[in-house]
């Protein structure tokens, strides 16, 4: 059984609604969800806020349908970039598990694919594409294992948006051939969520094959999460955590013991 993920749940200040959206996601069988904080630096007085700790949200996380584990909640930042100065990897970004960028111009799209240190590139779904996708940046993004995201909530809400969503998605699929695509919800209300199997089948409309459609909600999302982790750590190999002062003694005692064990084995 694949593990399904939905990496885009819109953040609302309404805590109750956010809780009910996450509960619905668990009910539908999503094992991991990401709460999406959008920052549009074009508008004035927009700042990157610290994400709320996920443990504040629930006392006990709801159990995922068909599994016995509780749902995992991540934080994700989406930067809407219309000028190159908007995307600056600062300390603020480090507080988030995932970083996404929503490029508005062709130049920025190129930069996002080739150089920006991001996990996800969002594709416009509410308007006609402001630029054409070119093969070289898209291939570059695939090589760097950066993923393209299509969100489906707008398609469900309104039928002109649906046309744009499908048209833009098909446009992208022609270039990337169904690779490195994730489909996520972007839901604000619990009733805008859809089940993972429905979504993988909805990929049919977006020009994804059966296999790619399923990968778009499961394995590709997992790759995104791992990519996000590698940004936090040194290439995903070394992980630094703050040492708990109460535990220091015990940890130091343990360390030589494990070394000795290794030597004996060798």
């Amino acid at each position, binding site marked *: 059984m694949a593990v399904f993920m939905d990496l885009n749940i819109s953040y609302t200040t309404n805590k109750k609604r956010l809780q009910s959206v996450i509960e*619905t996601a668990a*009910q*539908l069988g999503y094992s991991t969800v990401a709460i999406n904080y959008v920052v549009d630096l074009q508008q004035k007085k927009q700042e990157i806020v610290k994400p709320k700790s996920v443990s504040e949200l629930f006392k006990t996380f709801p*159990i995922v*349908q*068909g599994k016995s584990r509780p749902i995992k909640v991540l934080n994700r930042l989406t930067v809407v970039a219309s000028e190159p100065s908007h995307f600056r990897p600062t300390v603020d970004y480090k507080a988030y598990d995932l970083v996404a960028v929503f490029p508005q111009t062709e130049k920025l799209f190129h930069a996002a694919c080739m150089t920006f240190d991001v996990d996800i590139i969002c594709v416009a779904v509410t308007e006609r594409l402001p630029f054409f996708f070119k093969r070289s940046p898209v291939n570059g993004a695939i090589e760097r294992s950066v993923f393209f995201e299509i969100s*489906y909530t707008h*398609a*469900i*809400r309104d*039928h002109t948006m*649906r046309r744009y969503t499908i048209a833009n998605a098909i446009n992208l699929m022609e270039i990337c051939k169904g690779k490195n695509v994730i489909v996520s919800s972007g839901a604000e209300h*619990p*009733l*805008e*969520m*859809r*089940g993972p*199997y*429905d*979504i993988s*089948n*909805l990929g*049919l*409309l977006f020009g994804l094959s059966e296999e790619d459609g399923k990968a778009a909600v499961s394995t590709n999302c997992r790759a995104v999460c791992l990519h996000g982790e590698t940004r936090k750590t040194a290439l995903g190999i070394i992980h630094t955590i703050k040492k708990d002062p109460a535990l220091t003694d015990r940890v130091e005692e343990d360390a030589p013991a494990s070394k000795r064990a290794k030597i004996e084995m060798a």
Partner: protein
Amino acid sequence: MVRLKSRYLLCEVCVSDRSHLLLLDDGTVQNAAKHALIQAHGDYGFAHSIFGFSVKYLNAHTGIVLLRCRKSHYRLIWSALPFITGLKKRGQKVPCFFNCLHVGGTIRTCQKFLVRYNTQQLHRMLPLCHSEEERSAIRKSVLSCTVQKDADADSEEDIGEED
């Protein structure tokens, strides 16, 4: 002779308020699905998939719906289902969404799946009971149904009611 093959989509209707589920009937579900189908695939797609499309089973207590369609075009219908946002009944609209649980080749396999699924749901919900009395009451009601032979359908209904 080769028989005409169909696919059965076992769906769950999810609503915010479970009491709205009792308003469900075959006609409203079928209309909503057809409407979504026209919106998603246009007249051509509608014409392709409408033959043999029907609502086979509907349980207003648990919100389970069984849709039947031709095997050749079941993916068209399935991909239209996410666009259903509400069911219209006598002027009032019930916001809801369809969650597809299982796709089967026969009604029998769908029924088998549904029994297994509902058992799972029961196990999920039992720890949420507030008191021991509630728990034993639910157990008793389930057991009393399964004593009879051919009582699968009844026991499913009970699980929904106790929820």
